[in-house]
């Protein structure tokens, strides 16, 4: 009876790590706002086919470059397409570009980084030198060069952005792996007789995951800007399919006659990037092990 009581008491006093991270995240107003912004855009992008708006490529020649009105809340573009509809469908391109390119960067970069930090020696030297060579070229320039090389399409833009972001994750995963490798629990895994594979998947990857999650969230924001830039340059989403970057590209020709064509996609990019940055910062604070 007593033992049950003490047991309950201690479990009250020491909450689980998961719930503590969540509580800390929740108490951070900015992070919560970031999460809400991101969730809003994700939901809108997912529900695009169900929303009561005209198709993104449907032209209304009777309403070309019209300002916001009841029929077209965000106005129409130079060939009479609904800006709101194009933004909603464009959100799919932007968010997908952000998520897919970061996905590519994580899937390629993290294994290489872990390998580099785990094996050290020549493997590490080779991987690190290539990483440094890639880092020598600025992120966006590298992405533009790769996209131009691969040919203009949204898929190629995502691949180009993904490859450009790989070195960030190699570096991060390598450093985190090296720091985890100094922990006694890695030695304890070897003492128990674990194989290298089990040690990496059960000990190293779970312990380096939090910083990679944070970096991934922040890089999604960068990738969304990169996709918009590539589309602006004509290297990303191809017409007539909408993306925020290509909308801006067209809108720059009509800034004086139809400013709303640039205003709304620009604001959307600003908001979603802000959202991902706030979310990433919040996750970093919430997952910080120093507060545990």
């Amino acid at each position, binding site marked *: 009876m007593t*033992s049950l009581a003490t*047991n309950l008491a*201690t*479990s009250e006093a*020491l909450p*689980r*790590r998961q719930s503590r991270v969540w509580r800390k995240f929740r108490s951070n107003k900015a992070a919560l706002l970031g999460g809400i912004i991101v969730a809003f855009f994700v939901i809108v992008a997912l529900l695009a086919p169900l929303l009561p708006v005209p198709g993104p490529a449907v032209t209304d020649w009777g309403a070309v470059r019209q300002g916001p009105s009841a029929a077209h809340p965000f106005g129409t573009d130079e060939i009479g397409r609904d800006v709101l509809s194009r933004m909603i469908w464009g959100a799919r391109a932007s968010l997908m570009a952000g998520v897919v390119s970061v996905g590519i960067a994580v899937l390629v970069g993290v294994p290489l980084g872990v390998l580099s930090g785990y094996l050290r020696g020549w493997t590490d030297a080779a991987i690190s030198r290539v990483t440094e060579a890639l880092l020598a070229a600025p992120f966006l320039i590298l992405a533009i060069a790769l996209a131009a090389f691969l040919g203009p399409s949204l898929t190629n833009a995502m691949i180009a952005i993904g490859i450009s972001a790989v070195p960030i994750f190699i570096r991060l995963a390598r450093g985190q792996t090296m720091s985890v490798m100094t*922990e*006694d*629990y890695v*030695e*304890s*895994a*070897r*003492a*128990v*007789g*674990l*194989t290298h594979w*089990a040690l990496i998947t*059960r*000990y190293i990857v*779970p*312990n380096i995951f939090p910083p990679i999650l944070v970096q991934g969230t922040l890089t999604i924001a960068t990738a969304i800007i990169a996709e918009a830039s590539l589309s602006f340059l004509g290297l990303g989403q191809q017409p007539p399919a909408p993306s925020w970057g290509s909308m801006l590209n067209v809108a720059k020709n009509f800034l004086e006659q139809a400013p709303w064509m640039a205003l709304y996609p620009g604001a959307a990019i600003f908001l979603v990037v802000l959202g991902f940055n706030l979310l990433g910062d919040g996750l970093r604070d919430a997952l910080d092990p120093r507060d*545990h």
Partner: protein
Amino acid sequence: MTAILSTRGLRKDFVTAKPLFGEATVVQAVAGVSLDIAAGETFAIVGESGCGKSTLARLLLRLIDPTAGEVWYKGEDLASLPPARLRALRRDLQFIFQDPFSSLNPQMSVGALIEEPMRVHSIGTRTERRAKVADLLTRVGLRPEHADRYPHEFSGGQRQRIGIARALASGPTVLIGDEPVSALDVSIQAQVVNLLEDLKDDFGLTLVIIAHDLAVIRHMADRVAVMYLGEVVECAPAGDLYAHPLHPYAEALLAAIPVASYGARPARTMVEGDPPNPIAPPPGCKFHPRCPYATDICRVERPVLADMGGGRTVACHRATELSLQGLADLEQARTPAARGRFALYAQAMADKTAHNRPE
């Protein structure tokens, strides 16, 4: 004596600096250690920080690769085993870490941590392993329901118990503890030491305990090896060593144990200064710069471990001529009243232990 674990000429060099050209700077952390650890005994390895005792402990399990030498366990040399065979042998040889806060993977539940060694070595079915986890948790003084918790929810002493349960899970024959209690509060230290002793009896283990002072392992060790700068300077049955050490360094370590007695200890420091730089150890006996008994030969010729009979070995030129002070002398120096009280205390403790052990 049947040795379960033996080392021969075990050596480990660490490279501290390697310039692009020229010779690398090398530290001999373990400089040729030969030991025989008997089945079923508690063997303690003692020495101050930096003497290579933790390196030796890791070499015993080949958690690090030796530079030279052999480690024999049941007819196999661990130092030259292929990785797959070594992994299989890890079932028999387990390790307890010094720092309970960094030796448990924070991402795994206590149950998963304790179950892991059994899973790695394919011991039992899932249900059997779960039952064993619950049993082990009880054996180390925790509760079966703790299996679902995570390491950060426990105190240092509790975590060390979890570490011990994990070490026991695969059913080892030899348990090596690298200062298993030095990171714990003094009150908790005694509990964990008692736990290790009980488990040793229950599971028929051979214990190898690394410690930096002789106080902790006093009532626990059967035999003690004293290390200084990577070498064993004295190895003896614990009772003999505590009563009459043969090496001046062992005497110095004994003198560092607090004795509860007024005026029991002469007001002098046995050994002064820090150990010499292990990169460039002094010529002759490595201990001579700090040794109060050093003579000319000690400064020139390095002493080798010599058999002194009665299972004692010592590496000292003057071992036969010196009469060094052990703990027994100090305790004799207590006042009669103090001696009486200590005797009463010892009696009470003995009664309590007998009472607490339901047989």
